[in-house]
């Protein structure tokens, strides 16, 4: 074998090994984090975590029931704010938009998607917290809802675009008006995908901490209303993790694990829905 061929062979093996090592490194970092979190979280997790309020510093035990409910409240309200706007915006972009205006909307949505989440928090603080003179679940929900809009909008647009043009023509050729065609054929055909996108979007905002720090703030007790400071899992993790108490660190690990499991559950659900949707469509294509 000539020198040149040997060199080629060596280079081939070397590069293959390098790409393999990098791939393994990327995955193992992820698994390291997940494993560490699961190990620490699982040890700290008990039934009290789901049923009790946090204890004052120094006392052992307690839980984060208020933060679980608070997170659910905030994320639900954020979904009610963000999902409809994103959905209808996506329908506009896919079905109605002309060239110029759509380009601007799409571009701005992508920019908004890339805005640091803490900046969104500052916005919600300015328009809700400052005028009302109080931190509130509403302000937190607005911040998260704003983050959800571009995610939902672009996802909805993409899934609607994937609906074959022949379906639209089929509906129009039967005398359906444009809005009826969209409402009865295009959106139902893309619904699995849109629902999946929304679940993933909601899972993403559920883990956000920065936008909540100075909007919904935190609360050691049950929140007494939408216009009151409200505990949430991410902020609870943050405050407990930086506190100088061993037992609070334990609680933070548990909260991290619960949040992770919730997001994981949402991902699995989304993938399940989407995979069934694709197989249904394959029959047609």
């Amino acid at each position, binding site marked *: 074998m000539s020198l040149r061929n040997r060199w080629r062979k060596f280079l081939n093996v070397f590069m293959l090994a390098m790409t393999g090592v990098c791939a393994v490194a990327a995955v193992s970092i992820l698994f390291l984090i997940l494993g560490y979190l699961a190990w620490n979280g699982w040890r700290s997790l008990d039934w009290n975590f789901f049923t009790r309020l946090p204890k004052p510093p120094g006392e052992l035990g307690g839980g984060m029931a208020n933060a679980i409910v608070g997170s659910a409240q905030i994320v639900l309200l954020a979904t009610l704010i963000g999902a409809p706007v994103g959905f209808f915006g996506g329908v506009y972009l896919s079905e109605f938009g002309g060239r110029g205006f759509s380009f601007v909307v799409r571009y701005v949505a992508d920019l908004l998607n890339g805005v640091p989440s803490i900046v969104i928090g500052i916005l919600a603080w300015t328009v809700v917290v400052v005028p009302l003179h109080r931190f509130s679940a509403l302000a937190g929900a607005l911040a998260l809802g704003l983050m959800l809009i571009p995610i939902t909008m672009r996802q909805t647009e993409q899934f609607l675009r994937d609906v074959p043009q022949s379906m639209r023509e089929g509906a129009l050729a039967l005398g*359906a008006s444009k809005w009826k065609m969209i409402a009865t054929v295009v959106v139902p055909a893309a619904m699995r995908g849109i629902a999946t996108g929304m679940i993933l979007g909601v899972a993403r905002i559920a883990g956000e901490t920065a936008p909540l720090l100075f909007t919904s703030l935190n609360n050691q007790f049950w929140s007494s209303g939408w216009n009151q400071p409200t505990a949430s899992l991410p902020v609870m993790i943050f405050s407990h993790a930086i506190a100088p108490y061993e037992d609070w660190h334990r609680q933070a690990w548990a909260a991290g694990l619960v949040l992770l499991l919730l997001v994981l559950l949402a991902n699995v659900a989304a993938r399940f829905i989407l995979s069934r949707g694709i197989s249904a469509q394959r029959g047609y294509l």
Partner: protein
Amino acid sequence: MSSSSDSELTVGKPHERPRSHAGAGVRLAAAPPKMRSVNLNFYYGAFQALHDISLDFHTNRITALIGPSGCGKSTFLRTLNRIHETVRHTRVEGRILLDSEDIFQVETTTLRRRIGMVFQKSNPFPKSIADNVAYGPRVNGVRRKTDVEEVVERSLRRAALWEEVKDKLRESAYALSGGQQQRLCIARALAVDPEVLLLDEPCSALDPIATAKIEDLLFDLKDQCTIVIVTHNMQQAARVADYTGFFLLGRLVEFNTTEVIFKTPARKETEDYITGRFG
């Protein structure tokens, strides 16, 4: 119109003498034309895809449009129910008449209820078989369950599909074979009782048996509506059509009874095409 006494030859030169051509059609037909295209030009942006098309579609007759790929026959078909308007930057000049009413003056929703269309690739909606057929009646305001069921059965029978699907009306339309899906699309189009049925190469993706079924179907439907079929398959045109129009490079080269087109075409281009010398 009926004063025309043009020879067959002028029929074959529509783009040279478009006005006399329409008259010739009437002379050949038993009934007045259901649809007429008068000096139709069609543009994709700056590109002119159709040049001065004038031709009549006779009531309860099957008209086939043949020609090589890209000759404009599908484009022409798509202007007849104005579905071309879903494509940006398209423009039409000239007139298309449905029962002597200008279709460009009619609401598209109303127009398309009267002129049904079946596409090249079957395009059932991701719904059940019954819901596919019921789609047209439903968007046109049929609500009562018994009425919907009645129209679903009648349309599936008319499309010769009822016996094959009557036990699985609630199953997905995608569970059907390709030929069945295309007949489902025909049933769906028939469910709104169209006066005219446009078919854009409806058999191009089907095997000979499924094709034969659809051709039989067209014969049966002739009594109830006026049919226009675009086809690549010249045998198909010869088998099913009463009239045939030959398109080439965006022009209607020749239009006449199918018998004349296939046996004694007036134009050399037509003869070359149907004898397979090009295209």
